[in-house]
């Protein structure tokens, strides 16, 4: 947990006060909607199909229980009793009234939360591995660096009106759980041959209409230089990124039009002129930020306590859940527990106020008061003693967040789609719901193994469909909802964009197509351990395409 100090609190309070004034000027008519739009966007306020939507940042996916309870309060007091966790470690409330927004923001600020820069053409919420600080394969906690960057880019006077939004992710593990290469800029912490800590810098990733994976422009950047290098990249982009066409305004287009070498050279020239200035990181500053991350005082425990083994032997449902939703922790005797927000027939990523409150209570009791939010739209309790797992499972099961399908076919990532979003061409949520109903047989889902389905309701790709093992993209054709299907995408350390298998299919056939693809996989895999993605990588899309379109 990063703990705010007076400076952080003051900045937030001043921001709420400023936004209150802006809302008042909008309501009085002093500001036109066109003038108000960039101001509200800088505070995470969108105008959607039915109402204003407020997006709140959960920096690097870490929540205290006080913060989670505040989100429950926001849901109850200002919205319709639930919130929607997004693919970028944010939460959205879709039914907020404009005149109540300043009060909602003041409530959030009281626990160090805000919607600053969760929309608009600025640097968005900095994301990272939801298991940061507890993952066994981690080099160092990436959140300290994410927080340093967060502060540097928050209300940055130079970079608040860039050509387009700018998303940064920070990773620190051999296994990429932060989808680094689909970001405008990604920083991967690693050590060079001399043992020195630094970042691999990647730029130009992004999905949307023109999907690209980020390219490495600097294999090793000393940690001292991370802020100056971020500044140089942003300055290059701010000046030279395209502003004539919103579809070509992201940094990925600049990087690919200039070529990564030429882009890197521009950045390097700029960076050389500023790297030894005020942005060179003083180790004392890094230490200070690091010291404000609170870590639990773990008990000395052994792995695999007998009460866990007994409970697993006694209850098959519990055993299934442990196999599926519990992951290794860096400390012996502890575990990371994923809380599924993907119940059968539910909306991926939604949680009710009651669930949030209950999860906060359980986190206080079992996870040192800490909760995590991941880009897969699930939550996690990051510090659970293994001996507590049976009791925790009972409680999680009772509130509906112990569906043991994490990483399986029904653990679907989906954007809000046409049910809420004014940009969408097609619905996402009902497609996800139907697929979870088709695959409700847990034995089948487990037999299928790891299989990620991602659904976006339009080409903006908020559901990251390009990097789903199966990607589903809603499009509009003659006023009707159609869906393009891609397969073979992945968002991890071997990130790859999926391949389109053929013509779009109508809404009513999407779940059938997914079933066809899955049946083909079951026939084609050489052994049960070969996951869907490996079969696609081995055989290409042809056999799947044949199966899907043979009868269509």
């Amino acid at each position: 947990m990063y703990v705010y100090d007076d400076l952080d609190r003051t900045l937030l309070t001043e921001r709420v006060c400023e936004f209150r004034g802006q809302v008042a000027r909008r309501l009085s008519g002093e500001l036109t909607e066109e003038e108000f739009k960039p101001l509200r966007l800088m505070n995470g306020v969108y105008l959607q199909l039915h109402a204003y939507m407020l997006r709140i940042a959960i920096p690097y996916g870490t929540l205290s229980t006080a913060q989670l309870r505040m989100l429950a309060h926001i849901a109850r007091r200002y919205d319709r009793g639930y919130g929607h966790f997004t693919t970028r470690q944010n939460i959205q409330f879709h039914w907020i009234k404009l005149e109540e927004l300043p009060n909602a923001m003041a409530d959030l600020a009281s626990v160090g939360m805000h919607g600053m820069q969760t929309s608009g053409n600025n640097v968005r919420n900095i994301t990272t591995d939801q298991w940061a600080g507890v993952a066994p394969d981690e080099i160092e906690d990436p959140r300290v660096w994410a927080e340093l960057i967060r502060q540097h880019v928050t209300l940055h006077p130079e970079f608040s009106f860039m050509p387009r939004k700018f998303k940064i992710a920070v990773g620190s593990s051999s296994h990429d759980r932060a989808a680094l290469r689909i970001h405008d800029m990604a920083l991967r912490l690693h050590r060079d041959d001399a043992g020195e800590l630094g970042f691999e810098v990647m730029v130009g990733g992004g999905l949307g209409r023109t999907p690209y994976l980020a390219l490495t422009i600097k294999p090793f950047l000393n940690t001292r230089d991370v802020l100056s290098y971020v500044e140089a990249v942003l300055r290059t982009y701010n000046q030279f990124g395209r502003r004539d066409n919103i579809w070509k305004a992201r940094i990925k287009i600049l990087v690919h039009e200039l070529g990564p070498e030429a882009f890197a050279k521009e950045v390097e020239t700029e960076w050389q002129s500023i790297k030894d200035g005020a942005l060179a990181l003083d180790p004392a500053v890094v230490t200070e930020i690091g010291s404000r991350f609170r870590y639990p005082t773990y008990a000395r425990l052994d792995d695999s306590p007998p009460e866990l083994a007994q409970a697993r032997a006694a209850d098959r449902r519990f055993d299934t859940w442990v196999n599926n939703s519990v992951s290794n922790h860096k400390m012996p005797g502890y575990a990371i527990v994923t809380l599924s927000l993907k119940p059968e027939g539910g909306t991926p990523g939604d949680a009710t106020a009651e669930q949030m409150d209950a999860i906060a209570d359980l986190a206080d009791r079992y996870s040192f008061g800490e909760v995590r939010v991941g880009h897969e739209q699930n939550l996690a309790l990051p510090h659970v003693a293994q001996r507590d797992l049976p009791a925790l499972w009972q409680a999680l099961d009772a509130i509906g967040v112990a569906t043991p399908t994490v990483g399986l076919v029904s653990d679907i990532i989906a954007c809000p789609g046409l049910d809420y979003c004014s940009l969408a061409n097609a619905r996402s949520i009902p497609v996800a719901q139907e697929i979870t109903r088709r695959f409700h047989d847990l034995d089948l889902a487990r037999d299928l193994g790891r299989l990620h389905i991602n659904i976006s309701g339009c080409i903006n790709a908020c559901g990251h469909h390009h990097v789903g093992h199966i990607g589903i993209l809603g499009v509009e054709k003659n006023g009707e909802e159609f869906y393009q299907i891609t397969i073979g995408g992945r968002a991890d350390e071997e990130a790859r964009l999926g391949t389109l298998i053929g013509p779009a299919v109508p809404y009513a056939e999407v779940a059938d197509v997914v079933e066809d693809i899955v049946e083909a996989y079951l026939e084609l895999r050489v052994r049960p351990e070969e996951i869907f993605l490996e079969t696609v990588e081995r055989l290409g899309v042809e056999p799947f395409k044949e199966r899907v379109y043979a009868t269509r």
Partner: protein
Amino acid sequence: MRLVKSGQVVGDTFIRVADDAQIPDDRPVIIPAARLLADAEAILRRAAPTGVLWPNNRKVAELAAYLDRLALVALDFPKFRDGRAYSQARLLRETYGFRGELRATGDVLRDQFIFLLRAGFDAFEVKKDADAAAFAGEIARHTVFYQPTGDGRVAASRTRQGV
């Protein structure tokens, strides 16, 4: 439009001279970039101060040779949302050491004031009268800044170090 300097609405001593108009010898002028570059030495020899209106899609490096003789650089915000001139301003101040008047012109609204100041602007052609009148109050709203820029305001990281 109102000109704001040092937090006050003030009169403008500079006049804008169009591309084809005569440049008066004895009055402070702001001239278009292309015209300055076409005849810089002659124009800058005049007794009265010279300013230039620099477009936001041209590198400020082209101005470097003339900065010590320019009294004013006006940077353009064709739209509120087009923030290229923030980078130009910081480059002029922090990389090229320009100490003359740095003026924001175009779609300049209240909500940009603090960003403009922090980027190095010290004169503002404010579009709405009500915004110009609110300048000082708007600036006073902000007391904490996370990042250092060349404007001298102390970044939070420095305050925390007790520097």
